[in-house]
């Protein structure tokens, strides 16, 4: 990031914060609310379906992974109010468009 320097760290804490920011990539914005439950703050269409919150300390870190795995499960059966196509009524042939979400998600309309 070649940004004009308008702000410069003075003390060690500021330096540490700047170093932290340097390693951050911002192609995707954070979706956690900062509480210990890490509830999603917003939803993308696919990788955060908004209900799977996983408060556990271990895998998965964040919500993308589990939601992508749960996505087609939810789509077919409409178990949860996930942001996914409804395979029972409106998208009965979902499998023709998307049979693996990580691969085919771009084809969802």
């Amino acid at each position, binding site marked *: 990031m070649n940004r004009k320097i308008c702000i410069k760290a003075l003390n060690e804490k500021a330096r540490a914060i700047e170093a932290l920011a340097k390693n951050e990539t911002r192609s995707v914005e954070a979706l956690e609310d900062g509480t210990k439950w890490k509830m999603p703050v917003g939803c993308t269409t696919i990788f955060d379906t908004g209900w*799977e919150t*996983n408060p*556990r300390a*271990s*895998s*998965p870190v964040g919500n993308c*992974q*589990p939601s*992508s*795995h*749960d*996505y*087609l*499960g939810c789509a*077919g*059966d409409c178990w949860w109010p996930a942001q996914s196509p409804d*395979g*029972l009524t409106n998208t*009965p*042939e*979902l*499998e*023709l468009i*998307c*049979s*693996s*979400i*990580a*691969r085919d998600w771009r084809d969802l309309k």
Partner: protein
Amino acid sequence: MEKRIYFVLSIMMFCLTAIIEQSDAKELVITMGYGKVQVLDVSTDEIVADIPIKGWAREAAQAVDKNFLYVTASRHLIHKIDLQKMTVVETIDMNYGGWQRFIYGISIVEDGKTAYVNFLARKTDAGEVVVDVPTVAQIDLATGKILRSVEVPFGVINLTYAPKLHKLYASGQDIYTIETSGKEMKIVDTYSVFDRGLNILPLFCTTEENGGILLFPYYTAKLPGLMSINANTGEIKELPLKSEMMAYGAVYSTDKKKAYANMDELYVIDLETGTITNTEVIHEGTAFGIVPSTDGKKLYIQSGPIVDVYDTATLRVIKRIQLSTDGWMLNRVTL
């Protein structure tokens, strides 16, 4: 030159015999995919067949003669798959007579011709929605015709059949025992689950693959446990666990001293003490399907489009199998 040909031919013959011999006791793991069922050979952990199907696969039940597998798809289709030819040979659609039906649970009856299925049904009548009562029915596997049926409470998602006892266990909010020996099917017992503060979701569980016992986690406001329905004895049992666990499914180890459960972690549970003795993070993420090999040495766990093969002795992943479809659950058949 001629000799050479004979040599090649005899080698080919030998290979063919070897394949036939091997197929005599073939053990396969079937993945319930989207538009496709994929078959893994337990002896090699390779994908040995891709079987295109219509719809998204949900449940599977092996035919009495072992040569066929019935797979439900999109909650209304029942595909009959020839396990030798690895193709769909017949499909029945439960959407007929104006009704749309949604199947959750299938068990093949010992006559080999019929099956028990549980379904919800809806139709529109003069522009109005009509929703039928939740039903467990015995159907003709050739035609899908409903032979007899019984109304069940809302929420049943699993059927476990005990052929020797002529009883069907329908699990939902509670577990309902349905007597099948008489002319009419009827609920003869209700095993209370919900009113005791327990919650169950036996969606990703198998009975045949688990030594004839359906095993699944239950949850309470405090700690979870394991519940089981023994299709040989009809016994329903509960084992409270001593620590937290978040799991979709569970299976026994071969010696039935341990159980494995899965969601985002793989848990090893000591069945004598109810303690979780080991927890391994499943690196592929949330996993639904879990099934052990018959000898108990391997454990197959599916997360998204990946099946991880675990060595049960070390709990290390010994093979990572990439599928071409995401999956719902895993079943195991022996030919």
